[in-house]
C-alpha cells in the first residue's frame, strides 16, 4: 500500500503555507519516484506547529512541525518517510505529544486524524453511530438523553441544551427549524472553525439528531463570511452526506427527512446574538429582538427553532453514541462534560485544548500554553471574547467552570483565552472594548448605541488627564447604565472588560488621577 503523508488543510495550516508545502512534497515524491500519497487531514489543534506533516510508520504517525516548502528536500534526505526522529523538526509520535496526551477529547476525538470530508474515515472512527441510535428512538428519549448529559450551550450563555430542545419539541407547529450559530466572532476563539474544517460531518450529524429530536426538517448553518475555508469544506461535506443518504428526504432509509444549508453572514459581530442571527437569516438587518418570545417558541420565520452553537451540536453525536451519562461523568459542579478551550494571542503554544471542566486558568496557560510567545512575563488574560473581563495574575487560579468564573465577575463564554505580555497598555485595551461596541452595535437600544460612543470619548478624556476624577465617576456610571439597560449581551457586557481594567489596572487607564 502506498505510504500516506498527512498535511492539514485548515485555515491556520493554510495561513502558514500548507498548500505550498503540499505542492513541494508532491514534487519530491514524483522526482524520487516514491510510492506515497498525500492526504489533506484536519488539524490536531497544535496550531503553533502548523503546518504539521505526519507520516505513517510501523510505530504510528510521526510528526514534523512547522515545516516550510524550502525544507522538504532536506527532510526527505533525512529519512522523513522512514519516520526518522533525529531531525530537529520531528516531534515524535504525534499521539504521544504531551499537549495532546493530557487532553480529554470527546468532541475533537477525530480532529486531525481523518480527511475531514471523507465519510469512510468518519464512519471508521465512530461516525454516525449516534445518528443510528437516534433514528431508532422516540424524540422524547433523544431529548432525555441530552438532558442526562448535562450539556449547556457552548456558545457562551451556557443554557441547558436539553431544556431548549424540550421547549421546541413541546411547541406544536407544521414547520420547525434547527439553526446552527456558526458566527464565531469572539477574538481568540476558533473551536467552531476547527469543527467545521476538521470534522464537519460531526456537526451535520449533531444537527440531524436535533432535527429528529424536535420534528424539524430544515436546518441552517449561519456561517460568518470571514471563514472561507470552513465554507468550502462544509458545503463539500453536506454534498457528500446527501449522496450517502445521511441527509435528505429519507435518512438511512428511516423515512425521516432533514435538509441542511449553509448561509453566509456578512461581517456583523452582533449576528452571533441568536435573535439578531435569526433576523439576518430572514434577510433583514441583524437587529436584536426583545425576549420573550423565546426563539424556541417564536424563532426563524416565526416558527419554533432550536438555535445552538457549533460546539453544542458537535457534542451530541458522542452523547447519542456513548450515552448522556458517559458525557456527564466528565466535569465539575453544574458544568458537565468537556470544554474545548482555545489558547490565543501572545502564547507560545497556541491551539485547541479540550478538557473536562475544572482545570485552573494558570495550568492551562502554563502547562499547555507554555507561557508567552515573546518570553516576556504574562500580564493579563482576556477570557470569553471581547465582552470578557481582563484578568490579572491574582485571578489565574480560578477553575474553568461557568459558576466559578461568574463568581469572580468573569465569563467563560466560548472558551477563548487571549494572553497578553507585559508590554500591553491596558488603558488602550479598555478603550478598544468601547470602540468595538461602537462599530458593532446593532443600534436598536440606546445604552449600547450611544453609550459605546460616549464610552470612547470619556476614556479618551481620562487618558488625556481632562477632569480625570470626574470622568472616572462618569465612566463608572456609564458602565452601570449599559450593563443594566442594554437589550442584549453586546451592550450589557461591553463594560466588563472596561470595569476589569478600572478595577485591576487603574493606574494604566489614568496616570493623572
Amino acid at each position, binding site marked *: 500500500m502506498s505510504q500516506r503523508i498527512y498535511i492539514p488543510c485548515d*485555515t*491556520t495550516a*493554510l*495561513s*502558514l503555507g500548507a498548500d505550498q508545502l503540499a505542492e513541494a512534497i508532491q514534487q519530491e515524491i514524483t522526482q524520487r519516484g516514491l510510492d506515497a500519497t498525500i492526504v489533506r487531514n484536519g488539524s490536531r489543534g497544535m*496550531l*503553533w506547529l*502548523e503546518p504539521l506533516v505526519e507520516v505513517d510508520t510501523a510505530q504510528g504517525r510521526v510528526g514534523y512541525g512547522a515545516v516550510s516548502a524550502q525544507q522538504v528536500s532536506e527532510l526527505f534526505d533525512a529519512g522523513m518517510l522512514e519516520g526518522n526522529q533525529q531531525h530537529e523538526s520531528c516531534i515524535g509520535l504525534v499521539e504521544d505529544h504531551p499537549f495532546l496526551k493530557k487532553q480529554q477529547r470527546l468532541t475533537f476525538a477525530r480532529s486531525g486524524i481523518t480527511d475531514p470530508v471523507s465519510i469512510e474515515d468518519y464512519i471508521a472512527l465512530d461516525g454516525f453511530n449516534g445518528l443510528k441510535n437516534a433514528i431508532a428512538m422516540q424524540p422524547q428519549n433523544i431529548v432525555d438523553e441530552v438532558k442526562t448529559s448535562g450539556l449547556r450551550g457552548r456558545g457562551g450563555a451556557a443554557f441547558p441544551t436539553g431544556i431548549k430542545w424540550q421547549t421546541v419539541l413541546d411547541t406544536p407547529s407544521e414547520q420547525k427549524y434547527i439553526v446552527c450559530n456558526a458566527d*464565531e*466572532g*469572539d*477574538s*481568540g*476563539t*476558533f473551536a*467552531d*472553525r476547527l469543527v467545521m474544517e476538521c470534522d464537519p460531518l460531526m456537526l451535520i450529524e449533531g444537527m440531524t439528531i436535533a432535527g429528529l429530536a424536535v420534528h424539524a426538517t430544515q436546518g441552517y448553518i449561519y456561517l460568518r*463570511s*470571514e*471563514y*472561507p*475555508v470552513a465554507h468550502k469544506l462544509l458545503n463539500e461535506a453536506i454534498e457528500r452526506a446527501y449522496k450517502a443518504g445521511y441527509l435528505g428526504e429519507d435518512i438511512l432509509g428511516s423515512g425521516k427527512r432533514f435538509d441542511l444549508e449553509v*448561509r*453566509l*453572514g*456578512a*461581517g*456583523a*459581530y452582533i449576528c452571533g446574538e441568536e435573535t439578531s442571527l435569526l433576523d*439576518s*437569516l*430572514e*434577510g*433583514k*438587518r*441583524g437587529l436584536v429582538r426583545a425576549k420573550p418570545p423565546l426563539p424556541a417558541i417564536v424563532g426563524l*420565520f416565526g416558527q419554533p427553532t432550536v438555535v445552538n452553537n457549533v460546539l453544542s451540536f458537535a457534542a451530541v453525536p458522542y452523547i447519542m453514541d456513548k450515552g448522556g451519562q458517559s458525557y456527564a461523568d466528565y466535569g465539575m459542579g453544574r458544568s458537565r462534560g468537556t470544554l474545548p478551550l*482555545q*489558547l*490565543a*494571542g*501572545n*502564547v507560545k503554544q*497556541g*491551539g485547541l485544548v479540550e478538557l473536562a471542566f475544572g482545570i485552573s486558568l494558570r495550568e492551562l496557560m502554563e502547562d499547555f500554553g507554555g507561557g508567552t*510567545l515573546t518570553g516576556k512575563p504574562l500580564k493579563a488574560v*482576556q477570557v470569553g471574547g*471581547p465582552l470578557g473581563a481582563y484578568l490579572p495574575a491574582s485571578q489565574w487560579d480560578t477553575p474553568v467552570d461557568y459558576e466559578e468564573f461568574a463568581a469572580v465577575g468573569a465569563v467563560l463564554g466560548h472558551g*477563548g483565552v*487571549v*494572553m*497578553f*505580555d507585559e508590554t*500591553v497598555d491596558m488603558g488602550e*485595551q479598555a478603550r*478598544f472594548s468601547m470602540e*468595538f461596541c461602537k*462599530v*458593532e452595535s*446593532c443600534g436598536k437600544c440606546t445604552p449600547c448605541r450611544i453609550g459605546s460612543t460616549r464610552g470612547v470619548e470619556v476614556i479618551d478624556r481620562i487618558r488625556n488627564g481632562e477632569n480625570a476624577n470626574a470622568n472616572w465617576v462618569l465612566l463608572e456610571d456609564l458602565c452601570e447604565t449599559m450593563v443594566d439597560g442594554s437589550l442584549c449581551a453586546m451592550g450589557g457586557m461591553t463594560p466588563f472588560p472596561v470595569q476589569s481594567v478600572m478595577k485591576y489596572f487603574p493606574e494604566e487607564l489614568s496616570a493623572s488621577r
Partner: protein
Amino acid sequence: MTVGKEWTEQSIQLIIDGLKHKPGAMLPILHAIQNEIGYIPEKAVAQIAESLLQTRAEVHGVISFYHHFRTTPPGKHTIEICRAEACQAVGCRSLEAHAKQSLGIDYHQTTANRQFSLEPVYCLGNCATGPSIRIDDDIHGRVSLERFDELVASHQQDMKEVG
C-alpha cells in the same frame, strides 16, 4: 472573488432570479452579486427590491448594515487586517499602521492604481498564529512587517503581467 467584471441589468436579474425563491433570499442574493461583480451597484438595489417585493429603503438598509457589503468597486485585491484582541496581543497595531503607511491609504480606501483596497476585520479565527490578514480569500498568519511587504509585492506583480 471576481472583481471589476462587466455587468448589465440582465446579468444581475439572472442572479436574483436564481435565488429569490429561497426563504430569506436577501443575503444570498447580495453575496452572489458582490461575488460576481465585486460590489453591489446602485442599480441593483431597485431590481432586488422589486424582485423581493420590498422597498428600496429596506434593501439599502440591509446593505448598509453589514460591513461585508460594499457599494463602490474595490481594488483588484482586498486586504483585510485583523484588529481584534488576539492579534493586538502580538502586534497588529503596528502592522496596521505599517500597512496604511506603505499603501498610502486608510481603511475603506483604495490605492490610486486600483490594485488594493484596505479594510479592517474583527477576527479571522486564526488567533493562535497572529497577526493575521486576509488577501481576497487567502488568510495569512504570523504576518510580520516584512512578510506584509512580501505579500503586497507578490500581489503587485500580477498587475504587471496583466499589463
